[in-house]
């Protein structure tokens, strides 16, 4: 384990402080930020219908969620009629067991993986390795973090937290069969090396595992969207193709999938369309010359059915584009690992407490300035700030907020409900601070404000409250 130290959602604060001090992370995030936000804006400027498409996308997902049982059953029937198999899994252990069962049925020793967040959610690699089956991540970013023994720090750019020299170091440590004197500084040489190393592995695996961006009820198809082509090689070459998908990935028709695809790539990477959008339906057909002989889909719940019918149902619209984290000032400062689990950024701050519980991840929804950018850029219009607020309320109600903060908030609430008392108390407080801080004009330490003054000075008030100044200026 290189960096995977104590990264649990519970330790968000600790994780975040450590991440803030990480120079490499600063460098990596500064580089990526403009790329994503600028790219998205450009793609949207090229498509006047983008906002209407977002409304459509939202409506499609809402419609599916309201009728999820119907669509899942229809989808299942279609998969079976095209020769595939559907497995249902309530928990991550159920997914692991099913994957292992399928692997054993073909005596698999090696499994190739396309990028799958459900795979991450279910710790599939760990389960495979524990059973003596080699798991090879084939997406370049996923491969990099796999050899570093890390988790992805971003849902579509797993290695966004790393600089090229960190990648170089990891490659030198892992690819020990290659000449140590080789030149490896620049991204093209790094990519070349990864391509060559992984090329050989594609032909060794008996099972290929991919995720799914969408499952189509009309045809029983699964859709993956990639740029590298690794997902396709992973699913085409081995004997067995396993699709890992959560239940809310269903869409009714190919037309609905097309609408969602139009907003997905633009929101994610700023591309008009990803390089490879692959629609797979069942195993290889009789006359086919290639493709997998078996096609399995594992449908995961893992707490999602509990979100239906609650204020968090909207979160199940998420199509995992990553736009919310690309535009989030908190994510852009602390990076994805601070969030401590699979899903970082604003979408993670809402989803993680839903899936792991508020006692495990109640801290995450506090990691927001409520600037609202996440909601503004969300392709399926998830009201992320509102949902984070719901979680904050639940955290407060279940007495998980630290005592000090609870009393502080209660005291503040008492005061603001009594305007004249509030004015008087604030007036006295500001006056005292003015008198105390008059000489220096600032404080380098203050009781009850250590969290502030530890990193920066607190400017001394100048004798009057905002309200006093306001009424003075309006009287003039």
């Amino acid at each position, binding site marked *: 384990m290189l960096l995977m130290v104590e990264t649990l959602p519970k330790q968000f604060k600790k994780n975040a402080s450590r991440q803030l001090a990480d120079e490499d992370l600063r460098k990596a995030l500064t580089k990526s930020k403009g790329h994503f936000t600028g790219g998205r804006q450009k793609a949207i400027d090229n498509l006047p219908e983008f906002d209407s498409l977002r409304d459509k996308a939202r409506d499609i997902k809402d419609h599916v969620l309201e009728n999820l*049982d119907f*669509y899942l059953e229809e989808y299942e029937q279609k998969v079976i009629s*095209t020769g595939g198999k559907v497995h249902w899994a309530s928990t991550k252990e159920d997914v692991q067991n099913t994957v292992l069962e399928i692997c054993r049925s073909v005596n698999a020793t090696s499994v190739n993986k396309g990028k799958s967040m459900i795979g991450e959610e279910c710790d599939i690699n760990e389960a495979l390795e524990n059973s003596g089956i080699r798991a090879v991540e084939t997406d370049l970013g996923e491969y990099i973090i796999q050899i570093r023994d890390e988790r992805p720090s971003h849902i579509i750019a797993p290695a966004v937290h790393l600089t090229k020299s960190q990648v170089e170091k990891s490659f030198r440590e892992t690819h020990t069969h290659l000449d140590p004197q080789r030149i490896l500084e620049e991204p093209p040489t790094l990519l070349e090396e990864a391509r060559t190393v992984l090329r050989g592995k594609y032909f060794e695996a008996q099972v290929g595992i991919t995720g799914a961006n969408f499952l189509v009820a009309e045809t029983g198809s699964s859709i993956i969207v990639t740029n*590298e082509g690794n997902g396709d*090689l992973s699913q085409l070459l081995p004997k067995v193709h396993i699709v890992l998908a959560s239940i809310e990935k269903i869409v009714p028709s190919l037309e609905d999938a097309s609408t969602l695809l139009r907003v997905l790539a633009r929101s994610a990477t700023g*591309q008009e369309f990803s*390089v490879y959008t692959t*629609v797979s339906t069942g195993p290889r057909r009789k006359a086919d*010359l290639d493709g997998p002989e078996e096609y399995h889909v594992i449908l995961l719940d893992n707490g999602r*059915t509990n979100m239906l019918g609650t204020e968090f149902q909207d979160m199940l619209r998420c199509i995992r584009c990553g736009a919310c984290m690309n535009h989030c000032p908190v994510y852009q400062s602390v990076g994805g690992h601070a969030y401590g689990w699979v899903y970082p950024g604003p979408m993670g701050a809402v989803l993680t407490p839903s899936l792991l519980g508020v006692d495990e991840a109640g801290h995450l929804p506090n990691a927001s300035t409520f600037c609202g950018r996440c909601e503004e850029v969300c392709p399926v219009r998830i009201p992320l700030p509102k949902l984070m607020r719901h979680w904050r309320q639940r955290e407060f109600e279940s007495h998980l907020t630290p005592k000090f903060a609870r009393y502080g908030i209660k005291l503040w609430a008492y005061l603001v409900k009594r305007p004249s008392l509030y004015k008087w108390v604030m007036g006295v407080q500001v006056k005292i601070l003015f008198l105390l801080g008059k000489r220096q004009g600032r404080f380098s330490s203050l009781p009850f404000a250590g969290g502030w003054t530890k990193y920066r000075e607190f400017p001394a008030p100048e004798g009057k409250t905002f309200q006093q100044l306001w009424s003075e200026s309006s009287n003039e």
Partner: protein
Amino acid sequence: MNEQRQIILNNIRRSLGRSGPMDKEKISALKDRLTSPKRNLIPERTSLTSSSLITLFKDMAEGVFASVEEVDRLSDIPRAITSYLKKENLPSQVVMSSDEVLDSVPWEEQPLLGISKRIPEKDDMVSVTSAAVGVAETGTLAMFSGPDHPSTLNFLPETHVVVLPKDRVAKSYEDVWDMIRNNTAMGDRNEKKEMPRTVNFITGPSRSGDIEQTLLLGAHGPRRLHIILVDSKETN
């Protein structure tokens, strides 16, 4: 697993506040939505005449680093491929599928071009396939898997040359679905009007931005995607 299935479906129904089965009217409305799917919003940019549609396809494909050339006749294709491979410094051995379009190309006119009709192997450098549809909206190629088009041809070799007859350029992805449903895409191959095992939408050559978000071509799939637009299906 059947047990899990029931648990999950029951949980959904409980969470949605539905105790009994859905009413019949509702079910038939939902089934209709599946059996006769309606198009949602399609971007205005494809409302063009067929010749401007081809220009749009070309511009969009070039915008994502595919190279595009136009030839008049099927008989021009062997020479076009040979000179492309020469220009790119690539070997003149290609692996190819056997389909309606490619089978009517007079390959024997370019004896320098070595052709193997089979699925690709690890070290094959160049593949040649046709495409079922070209989607103008984003310069995307649509490939249908089948005995005449093994999907690995789209991914394994470093260079992918695609022959696309101009009358196969369509507007949107939705056109592709209709072609599959109406069986108008690829002659009579797809008699059952069913989904091919794999539909590959391909928009430019393979790429990755995973190292410092630097755009690099040729991650796992082809480094080069060369599209040859051919005017007519006539050989001469």
